[in-house]
């Protein structure tokens, strides 16, 4: 039995093949790294010449940057939140998913977190927003939703980092024990002296459990607060009580979409079909489908109330989305975010890797458009109609947007190259559960397996 498990573990680690040169990953990292350079190039131009190189103007003071900020923060909900929910609810099929989902969170947050700084007129003064005691006697304004944002995102990034790194410890130890030379020393460093003792397992398990419980409200709060950047204002169609849950649902929706794409690529590129199996896609697809419905419901509710109330300033924004200059993007969003998913995901054939990945691609585009359509039409149509605006993104903004995708992908490639993208010990733990269940059934003896404290046999070697 132990040998069998060891065999399967060897095969998984082999697939992850961290010790081999993998041209696919290297080329991927290289290409996305180049795209990521575009991000820094464009930002550099902006710092040199002024924020005016972006297309934003008066009255559309926020544009692609804030859209993309919300987009990436939304993506970040993929991981940690989903993995935490699945962990807390004890969904067994989660095991191969958690690591690649949590990585998305961390990197999406890192990329998204750059945007509030990037969009500032004077990015070099960002320290004004930090509560550092200073001789001026000045303090940040904690009444501002932007400060709540900063606090929430910082907390989330710390929490996500911990939540990603805790379960990484045993895997690092596995890698340490399997490698030689300098690699062994490096992995050893990250393994933090993991020996696999019962005491260590207990601490790790309780740590992960606490983090899983903590991270869920944290994630919900982050996107709620992001939504309050808008909902707290007096801008037409931003002032909405449902923005909090609406944004959270949208965030999870886009997060799952990103996860689906990542999983499909991993499965295809690294031959991980045995682990990121059809069953995983199917289950996640069901969740995806549920989020489609939830997102559709919120979108419908949001627009219905505005339409029915017909308040002048809000109706102007609404109709610019329905039939005005933003009708194209709006109906595109409806189609890729709702119509297509709802035609595909309810069916078993639709929850296979390829269809879900394609649907997800559409959802990512749609969710970016959703944020764009929340921000731009409202700002273009302020209450005093004399200052009507008009916004077209500039090339710099588009470069930053594309570059940020590259930056995110580069992080992800680099991570996959160096860290097991599937949590080896968790998967192995799952096999142990399976075995003990089937073993118990076969023996038909008194159930004595203690599923509560999994004890990886062999001490990880």
């Amino acid at each position, binding site marked *: 039995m132990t040998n069998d498990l060891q065999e399967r573990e060897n095969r998984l680690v082999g697939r992850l093949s961290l010790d081999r040169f993998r041209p696919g990953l290297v080329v991927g990292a290289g290409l996305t790294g180049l795209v990521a350079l575009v991000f820094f190039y464009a930002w550099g131009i902006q710092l040199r010449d002024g924020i005016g190189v972006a297309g934003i*103007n*008066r009255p559309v003071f926020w544009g692609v940057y804030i859209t993309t900020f919300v987009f990436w923060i939304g993506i970040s909900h993929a991981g940690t939140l989903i993995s935490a929910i699945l962990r807390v609810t004890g969904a067994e099929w989660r095991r191969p998913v958690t690591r690649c989902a949590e990585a998305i969170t961390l990197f999406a947050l890192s990329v998204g977190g750059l945007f509030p700084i990037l969009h500032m007129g004077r990015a070099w*003064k960002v320290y004004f927003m930090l509560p550092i005691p200073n001789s001026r006697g000045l303090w*940040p304004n904690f009444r501002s*939703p932007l400060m709540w944002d900063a606090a929430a995102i910082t907390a989330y990034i710390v929490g996500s980092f911990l939540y990603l790194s805790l379960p990484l410890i045993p895997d690092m130890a596995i890698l340490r024990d399997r490698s030689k030379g300098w690699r062994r020393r490096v992995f050893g460093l990250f393994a933090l002296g993991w020996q696999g003792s019962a005491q260590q397992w207990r601490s790790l398990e309780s740590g992960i459990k606490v983090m899983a419980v903590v991270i869920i409200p944290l994630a919900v709060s982050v996107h709620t607060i992001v939504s309050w950047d808008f909902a707290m204002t007096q801008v037409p169609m931003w002032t909405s009580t449902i923005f909090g849950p609406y944004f959270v649902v949208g965030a999870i929706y886009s997060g799952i979409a990103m996860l689906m794409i990542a999983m499909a690529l991993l499965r295809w590129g690294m031959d991980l079909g045995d682990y990121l199996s059809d069953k995983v896609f199917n289950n996640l697809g069901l969740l995806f489908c549920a989020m489609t419905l939830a997102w559709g419901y919120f979108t419908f509710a949001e627009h219905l109330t505005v339409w029915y109330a017909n308040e*002048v300033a809000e109706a102007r924004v609404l109709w610019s989305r329905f039939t005005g200059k933003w009708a194209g993007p709006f109906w595109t969003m409806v189609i890729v975010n709702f119509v297509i998913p709802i035609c595909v995901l309810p069916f078993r054939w639709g929850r296979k890797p390829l269809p879900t990945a394609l649907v997800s691609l559409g959802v990512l585009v749609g969710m970016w458009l959703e944020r764009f359509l929340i921000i731009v039409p409202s700002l273009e149509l302020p*209450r005093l*109609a004399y200052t009507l605006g008009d916004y077209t993104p500039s090339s710099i903004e588009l470069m930053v947007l594309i570059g940020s995708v590259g930056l995110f992908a580069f992080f992800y490639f680099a991570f996959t190259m160096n860290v097991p993208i599937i949590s080896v010990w968790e998967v192995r733990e799952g096999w142990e559960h399976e075995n003990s269940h089937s073993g118990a059934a076969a023996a038909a003896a008194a159930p004595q397996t203690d599923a509560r404290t999994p004890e990886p046999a062999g001490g990880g070697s």
Partner: protein
Amino acid sequence: MTRWGMVVDTDRCTGCEACVVACAEENNVQTVGEEEAKKGRAMHWLRIERAVEGTFPEVSVKFRPVMCQQCGEAPCEPVCPVYATYHTDEGLNAMVYSRCVGTRFCANNCPYTVRTFNWFDPEFPEPLDRQLNPDVSVRVDGVMEKCTFCVQRIKEGQRTAKGEDRDVEDGDIQPACASACAAQVFTFGDLEDPESKAAKLSKSPRARHLLADLGTLPGVIYLEDQEWNPGTDVS
């Protein structure tokens, strides 16, 4: 206490825009050039809105100068993460350029769209720079700016009064727009002082706030016979 305020009699406004130029002249407001103006980045702190109602030949037009309303409950103030915009004891909605980090949140939340942003450093080709008002800081790129009620003139008036050991008298202080206006559209003064001209005018039955239902309690009071419907005042 003092609450600086301005009464604007729209009935007299001819839309000549002398106030707009006077404001730029007094406050070192940069001109951005044609290309930037096309992008909607003109910096005027004060604009003359005009509403056209009806169809030919029954067309009527109204003019309305709109500048920072110096709200008592200003939507721009709480959203600034660094207190770059805040409320002073004298009822001014202050804007501290050197504190501004340029999130532009205040401008989004201003229902009057009166805040303007420095997208680039200003350029004053020599010798236009010699016209700059030394009492007003020239703003650098990346900071927000807006009508200040000519705070430099308020400070100057208060300093003069203090130097002469007296209180500031009604009419001592005039913002640039008010002193430029041939039609005497603007009346500036202390709304808390019941004897001031502005306070008296603000009690007029024609007095109203712009977008009053937002509860921003502006310090600018318009004298107009009826409020424009914000939904139909474009043309």
